[in-house]
């Protein structure tokens, strides 16, 4: 077992401390302690192994079953009931992501700027903003979907449309963008701001030319994380953007993103092969997006 720590029976050897402490313990207790240590050591290993195994099996299964089904017909330009092509859904996903981000990113970043750079300590509004952001983060996606249907689709008479879906998703990912931006802004050293003020720049100029560029990698990783959530979202979209599998004519056309497409295919159960293929495309897409976000965040951590 390639563990960094090898705990010997009865005593203990910890990798970092390098000290051995073996107090005299009665033989009976020692046997009990040894058994406990052994059981626990294996329990935690098994748990970690289980977690890793589930991930490998899940991704492996989808890839193995799906890759042979990635046929050219799956990537044809139009969708019809015989050939359930995923291209329109893919284009819709890109559009949906672009629209949602266009709404959520400026709002999220500006809100974070206010929280970090402008708000005074102990401001009541800050507390309310924090509380509501946390609340937003916990709301189930189906509740967002219901709200989107009631407000954007019915109240504002936008109908089942790309724009109703985009606004719903924008509210959903707003906390993600806000929180990561806030963390990134807080990580910018105060001396940068002081330097900028010292050179005679105003607050606004400092924010836009010094603080935001420095925080860019962190903000970017948050935005990419939001993209991952948008691409994988289903429940919030079914009753806001609905399910028409065609490239939209305008922002008020109904659209079907890749995740919704995948759900409908799996539920119909008519095109099992195509469903596997679609699952591969969706899974790889989302995993790549998440890896990209992690990679950028990792680079940021190293740069510090």
């Amino acid at each position, binding site marked *: 077992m390639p563990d960094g720590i090898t705990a010997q029976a009865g005593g203990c050897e910890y990798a970092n401390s390098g000290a051995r402490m073996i107090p005299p313990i009665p033989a009976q207790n020692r046997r009990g302690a040894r058994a406990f*240590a052994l059981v626990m050591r294996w329990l935690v290993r098994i748990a970690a192994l*289980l977690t890793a195994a589930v991930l490998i099996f899940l991704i492996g299964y989808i890839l193995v079953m799906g890759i042979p089904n990635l046929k050219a017909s799956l990537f044809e330009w139009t969708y019809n009931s015989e050939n359930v092509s995923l291209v329109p859904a893919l284009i819709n996903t890109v559009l949906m992501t672009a629209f949602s981000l266009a709404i959520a990113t400026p709002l999220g970043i500006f809100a974070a700027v206010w929280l970090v750079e402008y708000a005074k300590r102990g401001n009541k509004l800050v507390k309310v903003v924090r509380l509501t952001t946390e609340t937003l983060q916990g709301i189930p996606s189906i509740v967002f979907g219901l709200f989107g249907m009631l407000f954007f689709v019915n109240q504002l008479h936008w109908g089942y449309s790309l724009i109703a879906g985009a606004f719903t998703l924008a509210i959903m990912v707003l906390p993600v963008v806000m929180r990561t931006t806030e963390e990134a802004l807080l990580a910018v050293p105060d001396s940068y701001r002081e330097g900028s003020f010292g050179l005679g720049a105003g607050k606004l100029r400092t924010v836009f030319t010094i603080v935001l560029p420095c925080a860019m990698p962190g903000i970017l990783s948050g935005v990419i994380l939001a993209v991952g959530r948008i691409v994988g979202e289903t429940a919030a979209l079914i009753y806001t953007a609905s399910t028409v599998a065609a490239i939209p004519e305008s922002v008020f056309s109904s659209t079907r993103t890749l995740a919704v497409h995948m759900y409908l295919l799996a539920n119909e159960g008519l095109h099992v092969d195509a469903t596997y293929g679609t699952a591969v495309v969706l899974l790889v897409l989302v995993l790549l997006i998440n890896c990209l976000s992690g990679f950028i965040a990792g680079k940021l951590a190293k740069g510090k």
Partner: protein
Amino acid sequence: MKTSSVKAKEKVMQWVFTLCACVSILAVALICLFLFANGLPTLGKIGPLNFLLGTNWKPGNDLYGILPMILGSIYVTAGAIVVGVPVGLLTAVYMSRFASPRINRVLLPAVQLLAGIPSVVYGFFGMVVLVPAIQQVLKTDFVRKVLHINNGKGMSLFTASLLLGIMILPTIITVSKTSLDAVPESYYEGSLALGATHERSVFFTLLPAAKSGVMSAVILGIGRAIAETMAVVMVAGNQTWMPQGLFQGLRTMTSNIVIEMGYAAGLHREALIATGVVLFVFILIINLCFSLVKGAEKNA
């Protein structure tokens, strides 16, 4: 002249920033307003008791009792916790105190990947792998004759719990690992100095010290499990009867909305929105618990 325009710009942008910060307040207010305004009158129309405690959901006969779905959500969530918390917590302990940095370099991204997989893909996996597998196991003589489980179904409470247990693993692992990592090293060293083994120190000193972090991990896990929609719809069977056992199908509040909203009209539709309101209230209560635990952590 120039300075005054700069000053005006500063002022305007400060207001813009403040307004953007208020968007999240506006969003929560609108969500509350629209859900409650649409849901509460329905509750009055059906009768709060008939709605919340009614055991029959038969929209065709104008019977709208969501107790089966409320219980369904609670059972599935409890099942997910039973599956996910032990495995997740032990994995977190392993990653925090047993694994070498080399292993963690692989395991940490793996956990993040697990968090990134979309719920439809989880649901599809459950549908094509877990459901048939469990069906096969339930058919064996051992299960039928020794365990006396007859006519169990693949789409069941058990399958949904298993799948949700997997889905909440990343939440449980990352939150508990963070709190385990935050325990001062001196606790561990003190325990060692008293003669405890590495394992004993970890499980009897570090874990109790990280108690509130583990609590928040469990609460977040509950929140995720009860909110999950697509994956549950695809594996839980979705019958509207009262939950009948571990190996029988059931329906959660989330699946109730997603399945029937497509064709519902009139009172039926309003009843579904009211189901959403009940779900929303559940989530608000869970959020409240979370902030209470976090507040206690800060004060400690």
